[in-house]
């Protein structure tokens, strides 16, 4: 499980350091944490199919919960995974109109990723090809690949776990989702160029 020696600290490690420093009294380090992890959290939220405003609220709520519970979080180093779990749960809770509280284990699986027509119209030709292939993957693989793409290699396993994927889904081995993406892209002459 050791990252390659040349690899710099992953996003999760940097986030963990910033959060640990915040807990130790360097309050301004929280801004650094927000800047570091917001792209991952945005994609984790949007990959659940929530509307943009819902996703923004979910991310904001997750951070406010983090601040409130900062001292009771057992593993500050795992703060990125903690935030991903809370964001995913919040998106579903908000999307359901807060009918009832439900636990992490009850969070439904993400739907297939959608891009609205306006977004699709601004893709480059190559991005269109990639999108076509990503769309053929299972919804779970689409969600996993979308979210880890915004993190670093040392973070993949922890993020997969916080998204509810089985241990060993990815990192340090490729796992089935990355393998499928590789295979489907590899068979497309339009991608290979």
């Amino acid at each position: 499980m050791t990252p390659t020696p040349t690899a710099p600290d992953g996003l999760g490690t940097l986030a963990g350091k910033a959060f640990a420093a915040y807990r130790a009294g360097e309050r301004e380090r929280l801004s650094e944490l927000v800047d570091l992890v917001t792209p991952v959290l945005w994609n984790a939220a949007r990959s659940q199919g929530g509307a943009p405003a819902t996703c923004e609220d979910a991310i904001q709520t997750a951070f406010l919960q983090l601040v409130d519970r900062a001292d009771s979080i057992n593993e500050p180093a795992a703060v990125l995974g903690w935030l991903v779990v809370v964001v995913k749960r919040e998106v579903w809770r908000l999307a359901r109109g807060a009918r009832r509280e439900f636990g992490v284990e009850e969070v439904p699986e993400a739907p297939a990723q959608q891009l609205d027509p306006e977004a699709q119209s601004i893709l480059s030709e190559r991005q269109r090809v990639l999108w076509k292939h990503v769309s053929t993957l299972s919804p779970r693989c689409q969600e996993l690949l979308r979210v880890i793409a915004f993190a670093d290699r040392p973070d993949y396993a922890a993020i997969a776990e916080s998204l509810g994927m089985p241990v060993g889904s990815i990192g340090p081995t490729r796992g089935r989702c990355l393998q499928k993406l590789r295979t489907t892209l590899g068979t497309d002459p339009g991608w290979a160029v």
Partner: protein
Amino acid sequence: MTSHTDAIDARDIANLHHVRDLFGHADPVPSDLAERIKFAITVHALHAEVAELMDSALLTTRGADAKVEPTPTDSVTFTAASVSLMVSSGPADSDDTDDADDRVRVDGWVTTPGAQIEAVTTEGSSTVISDANGRFVLDDLPHGPVHFVVTDPGNADMRPVITPTIQI
């Protein structure tokens, strides 16, 4: 042939970079999301009251849909239940430094004499106490986003008041 039990290699990393570019391009993070989260955290942590922007003729706040940097502020008033705050900005005193154009002086007035006014900018924060008439000056601030936090050291019951972010 490759297998899912192989280690992640450079091709996989490249594929993930393409996935990142795809979603980053098609569904980008709202440009001011991180700033709005930080503001919400500050308000929450201070148990603060958010002051309302009253006079917005000459400035633009950082709204949710702002695609461009707002125009610079001239003079603006904020009001909360316990306090009102008026600020105006201009170039910093030119005799201090040669590059005074790069710095901003904020002249302000607050309804509470002896209030503590903290200006939070990209460089950190500067703090000043208002005089017996409620006046204060914050010189040498950087251009860019700023918000103010007003507290009353003489009145522990007063909730801190935080203003929306403006551009100076």
